[in-house]
């Protein structure tokens, strides 16, 4: 049976269909879930918060989306150990919701940046990077105006010591502290990243490296289902 993955649609999400398409191309049953829902679909095995500009990025990016009705269900799901992946705006929402450490700020250049970037995977013992080698270089596009991850220095040191700074830019494009492109929570079941893996699942479109992240997630889903059975 195909693994059911919930892709949440907020008003202003615009990578929801790409996320759904790429997960389906990798063999998942990806379903779009409207933000006003209060429960995730039955037997959801993973949740993806896609990119976009939820609620027009008003106040701070992700700050309003975190109050969407579905976010209570997502927070409970994450608290119970469920797998949650946020890309770009999804990452911003997870930070604002307190499910991931830090915050995303305006790019240091003030420019909206849309191009391929190289990131290094720091660990592969996570549900999101198991298909990668430690230190592997992935080329995945970014497209954001507010992607500079920030956390106070002592928090960055703590996160680094615990191996939570999961992806780091090779050539920092946006002024992120410690070159951070993606982080994972301490429990290891919630990850956010600014690059868009869903835009890099076919070499025909420039890179297939994003598929490594999404396929790792689906591998984790299958392993968990087998373990449960």
């Amino acid at each position, binding site marked *: 049976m195909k693994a059911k993955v919930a892709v949440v649609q907020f008003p202003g999400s615009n990578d929801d269909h790409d996320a759904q398409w790429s997960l389906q191309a990798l063999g998942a049953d990806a379903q779009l879930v409207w933000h006003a829902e209060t429960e995730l679909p039955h037997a959801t095995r993973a949740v993806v918060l896609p990119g976009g500009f939820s609620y027009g990025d008003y*106040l*701070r990016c992700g*700050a309003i989306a975190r*109050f969407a009705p579905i976010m209570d269900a997502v927070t409970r799901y994450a608290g119970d150990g469920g797998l949650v992946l946020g890309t770009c705006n999804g990452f911003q929402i997870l930070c*604002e919701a307190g499910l991931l450490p*830090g*915050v995303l*700020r*305006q*790019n*240091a*250049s*003030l420019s909206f940046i849309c191009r391929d970037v190289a990131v290094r995977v720091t660990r592969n013992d996570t549900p999101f990077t198991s298909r990668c080698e430690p230190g592997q270089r992935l080329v995945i596009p970014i497209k954001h105006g507010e992607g500079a991850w*920030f*956390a*106070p220095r002592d928090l960055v040191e703590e996160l680094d010591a615990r191996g939570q700074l999961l992806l780091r830019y090779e050539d920092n494009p946006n*002024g992120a502290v410690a070159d951070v492109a993606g982080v994972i929570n301490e429990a290891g079941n919630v990850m956010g990243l600014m690059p868009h893996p869903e835009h890099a699942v076919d070499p025909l479109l420039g890179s297939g490296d994003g598929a490594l992240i999404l396929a790792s997630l689906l591998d984790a889903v299958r392993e968990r289902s087998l373990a449960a059975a």
Partner: protein
Amino acid sequence: MKATVLVRPKEGILDPQGQAVEQSLRKLGFDVEQARVGRVVDVEVAASNAEEARTKVEEMCKQLLANPLIESFEIEVA
């Protein structure tokens, strides 16, 4: 009651928007040492006195209007 919230980037936090404004002011010939850009939020809150209004708005700031990692806030109650 009316309250005004001033949200500022915390001291020491890089403020690229402020830097851009600072550079533009210099180009206009103003002798500017620094500019930082924050946000103003005017709220009308149901409260019977200024103290109650302040307490409520403070809670709004903590929960939504400011992100404590990067922003500080000040509240003025009219």
